[in-house]
C-alpha cells in the first residue's frame, strides 16, 4: 500500500486541539509524524488546499437492515452511504429480521461486514429477547460475540424493573445501554409531534412528555445503578433540561441529537410529506433551539444520524401508514455544518468533535483522532462547496430523504479508511 501525503489541508483534530493548515502523513495504514523527502516522492499525494481534513466521522446510530430487510439497505450499501458521507466508523442497530438478540445473528452480521463493508461497522445487540421487552437477551453472550452496546432501538423497554436489571447486568461487561426514550402508553397511534400542527392537521400526536418520562426514568436508573445509559435521538426541550441537571450531578448519562431534529420542525408537515415522518417526531422551534443549546453546552454529547432506510413504495403511502425514518449518512455533514456553524456560530472544530472523537469515546471505539500511531481514518471535505443532493443517485439503497433535490453546502471529497481511499470524486473505490 503506498504511503499517503495529504497536503495543505485545514487539519482539524479535536483530540489534539489542532486546527491549522498543514499536512497529514500515513504509512502502512497508520498516521505518522512525517515522511522523509524520499518517502514523500513515493507517496500518493492528495492536494487538499481549501479542504478540511479531520478524523473519519463516527455515527453510532444507523440502521443497515441486514439480515432480513435487505430490500431497504444492506451492510454493503449502507457502508457505501457512510463512506460517501465521510463516515469511517458506524454502529448498527439490532432491529433487523431476525433481531440481533443472539450470538449467531451477531456473527452473521460480522461475517457480512467483513465481506461487504467498505468502512468500519460495529454491531449492537438487543437488551431483551426478541426485542419484546419481556426478558433479558443473552447479554454476556452478545458481549463475547462482539457487540459494542445493547439497545432495543425502534422499541423501548417499558418495564422499569426490567430496564433496571438490564443496565445493572450490562454494567458488568462495560456495555453502554442505548435507549430510544418513548412511553408507548402515551403514543398509541401517534404519527407526529403533539401540538398546534397536529391539531390543525388532524393527526394523532406524540407528546414531548412521552420522551421526557423515559429520559427521567433512565437518568434515575443510571444514577441508582451507576450504569452508563446513552439516550438516543433526543427531541424534546424538557429532556435536554433533565439531562443537563443529571450531568450536573455527575450521572453516567450521554445523549445524542440527529441532524434532522436540529434542522427541521413540525410546521413543515403541512403537506403530509412522509419524508418528514420519523420517530421521535420533528417538534417545535422551541425544542429545536433547546437541542442546539444542549449541544453547545455539552448536555448533548454527539450528533448521530439514525439513518433509517425505507423503500420508495413503503414511504409512498398515506401519512398514517408510512413507516418512520429517513436516511441521513450522506447529508449529515452539510446539514450539521449549516445548522450549527453557519446559523448558530458554533466553531468548526467543536462540531467536528461532536461527530468524531466524542462518539468514538462514548462507545469505547478506536477512531475519532489523527494521533500518530492510530489507524488512518480520514475525512476530507470542502466546507464551502455547494452541490445538489439527489437521494435517488446516492449510495444508500433507499432514497427517503427530505433533502433530496436541495442544494447543500459542504461536500465530502475523499474518505479514507486505514490509509486506503474508499470514496473519492463522488465514487466508491472498489475493494
Amino acid at each position: 500500500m503506498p504511503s499517503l501525503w495529504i497536503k495543505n489541508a485545514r487539519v482539524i483534530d479535536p483530540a489534539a486541539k489542532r486546527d491549522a493548515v498543514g499536512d497529514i502523513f500515513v504509512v502502512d495504514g497508520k498516521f505518522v509524524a512525517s515522511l522523509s523527502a524520499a518517502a514523500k516522492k513515493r507517496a500518493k499525494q492528495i492536494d487538499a488546499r481549501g479542504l478540511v481534513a479531520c478524523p473519519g466521522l463516527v455515527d453510532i446510530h444507523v440502521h443497515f437492515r441486514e439480515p432480513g430487510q435487505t430490500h431497504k439497505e444492506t451492510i454493503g450499501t449502507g457502508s457505501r452511504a457512510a463512506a460517501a458521507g465521510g463516515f469511517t466508523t458506524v454502529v448498527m442497530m439490532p432491529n433487523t429480521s431476525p433481531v440481533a438478540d443472539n450470538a449467531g445473528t451477531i456473527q452473521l452480521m460480522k461475517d457480512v461486514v467483513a465481506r461487504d463493508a467498505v468502512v468500519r461497522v460495529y454491531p449492537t445487540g438487543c437488551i431483551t429477547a426478541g426485542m419484546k421487552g419481556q426478558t433479558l437477551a443473552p447479554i454476556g453472550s452478545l458481549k463475547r460475540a462482539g457487540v459494542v452496546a445493547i439497545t432495543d432501538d425502534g422499541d423501548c423497554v417499558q418495564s422499569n424493573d426490567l430496564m433496571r436489571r438490564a443496565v445493572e447486568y450490562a454494567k458488568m461487561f462495560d456495555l453502554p445501554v442505548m435507549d430510544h426514550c418513548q412511553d408507548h402508553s402515551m403514543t398509541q397511534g401517534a404519527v407526529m409531534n403533539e401540538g398546534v400542527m397536529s391539531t390543525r392537521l388532524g393527526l394523532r400526536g406524540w407528546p414531548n412528555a412521552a420522551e421526557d418520562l423515559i429520559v427521567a426514568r433512565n437518568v434515575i436508573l443510571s444514577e441508582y445503578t451507576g450504569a452508563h445509559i446513552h439516550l438516543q435521538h433526543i427531541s424534546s426541550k424538557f429532556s435536554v433540561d433533565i439531562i443537563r441537571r443529571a450531568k450536573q450531578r455527575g450521572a453516567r448519562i450521554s445523549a445524542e441529537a440527529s441532524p434532522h431534529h436540529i434542522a427541521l420542525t413540525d410546521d413543515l408537515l403541512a403537506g403530509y410529506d412522509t419524508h418528514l415522518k420519523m420517530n421521535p417526531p420533528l417538534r417545535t422551534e422551541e425544542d429545536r433551539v433547546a437541542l442546539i443549546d444542549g449541544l453547545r453546552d455539552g448536555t448533548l454529547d454527539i450528533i448521530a444520524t439514525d439513518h433509517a432506510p425505507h423503500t420508495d413504495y413503503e414511504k409512498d403511502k398515506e401519512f398514517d401508514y408510512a413507516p418512520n425514518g429517513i436516511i441521513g449518512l450522506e447529508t449529515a455533514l452539510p446539514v450539521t455544518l449549516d445548522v450549527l456553524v453557519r446559523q448558530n456560530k458554533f466553531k468548526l472544530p467543536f462540531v467536528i468533535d461532536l461527530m468524531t472523537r466524542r462518539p468514538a469515546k462514548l462507545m469505547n471505539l478506536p477512531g475519532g483522532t489523527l494521533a500518530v500511531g492510530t489507524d488512518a481514518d480520514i475525512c476530507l471535505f470542502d466546507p464551502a462547496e455547494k452541490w445538489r443532493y439527489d437521494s435517488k443517485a446516492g449510495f444508500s439503497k433507499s432514497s427517503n430523504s427530505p433533502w433530496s433535490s436541495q442544494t447543500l453546502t459542504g461536500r465530502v471529497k475523499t474518505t479514507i479508511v486505514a490509509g486506503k481511499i474508499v470514496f473519492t470524486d463522488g465514487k466508491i473505490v472498489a475493494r
Partner: protein
Amino acid sequence: MSWTRRHLITVEELSLAEIEQIHATASAFKRTLNRSVKKVPALRGKTIVNLFLEPSTRTRMAFDMAAKRLSADVISLDGASSSTTKGETLRDTAENIQALQADMIVIRHAAAGSPLYLSKILDIPVINAGDGSHEHPTQGLLDTFTMVEHLGSLKGRKVVILGDILFSRVARSNIHALTKMGAAVTLVGPSTLVPAWFTAMGVSVSHDLKSALADAEVVMLLRIQHERQAAGLFPSLGEYTGMFGLNKARADWLSPKAIIMHPGPINRGVEIDSELADGDRSVILEQVTNGIAVRMAVLYLCAGGQPQLVTPVE
C-alpha cells in the same frame, strides 16, 4: 369571478371569496331541487367515482345524488368490498380508477392527507369527502350555508361547536369556514377532547357549557366518535351527557332565534336530547338537503363549470 380550482381538498386553503362563490352556486342549484325535473345537464357524460374507504350514509348518498342531479354517471366503490382488503395501495387503487377513465374522484379515507396525496398523483379532480380527523370540506361549506340562510351574514355572530372536537374533521372544516367569514367561534367540551391547541386556529376554548351557550346563535353538536378515540378520554357517556349533553334546559340558555345543528349521525340522548333533535330549532335535516346543493356546486365548479352560467345575474 371564475373558479380555477380543480380539487377541493380543504376549506383552510379557500379564500372568503371562494367560499361565497360555492355558497352562491349552491343557492342556484338548490332552486333546481324544488322543480319537478330535478336534473340539470351540467355534467352529462362525465363519470364520477365515489371512493369511500370509511363508512358513510349522508355524505356518500349526497354526493351520489348531487352527481346524478348534474346528470353525471356515478360509480361507488366501497372500501370493504374493494381490493384494498387484499392490500392494494391507495395509489394503485386511484391510478386504476383513473385508468378506467373516471372524470373525477370523491374520496373519503381514514387517513388524514389522503386527498392531498391523490391530488398530487392523479390528473383528475379530487374531492375530499372526509380525511381522517383533518377536514370534511363539503360539510363545513353546507353547515355555513345553512347558518347564512337562517342568520344572514355570520360576521361577529356567536357560534358554538360542542362535543368531541379533537377527532372531528367537521369541526376543523367549520372552524376554517367560520373564522374566514368573521364569526366568533367557541369550542366546548371536556378538556381532553377540546385542548387549548385549538386557540391557534382563531377560536375560543371553553369547558363551561353555561357561559359558552349564553346568547349563542348557533350551536353545532358533534357526536362522540367511538371509532376515532383511544380509551380514557372521558369516563363514560353518562358523565359526558350529564356535563355537556344539550337538553331542553340548556337549550334555553341559547339566543331566542338560535339554531341547533348536527352533521349526523346523531346519538340520541347522548350529545343531544331526542326531542331537541326533532324540535323546531333543529335544522339538522335542512343541513342534509343543503348538502346536495353544496355538493352539486362543488362537483360542478371543480369539473370546470363556470359559476356565472348557474348563478342568476343580479
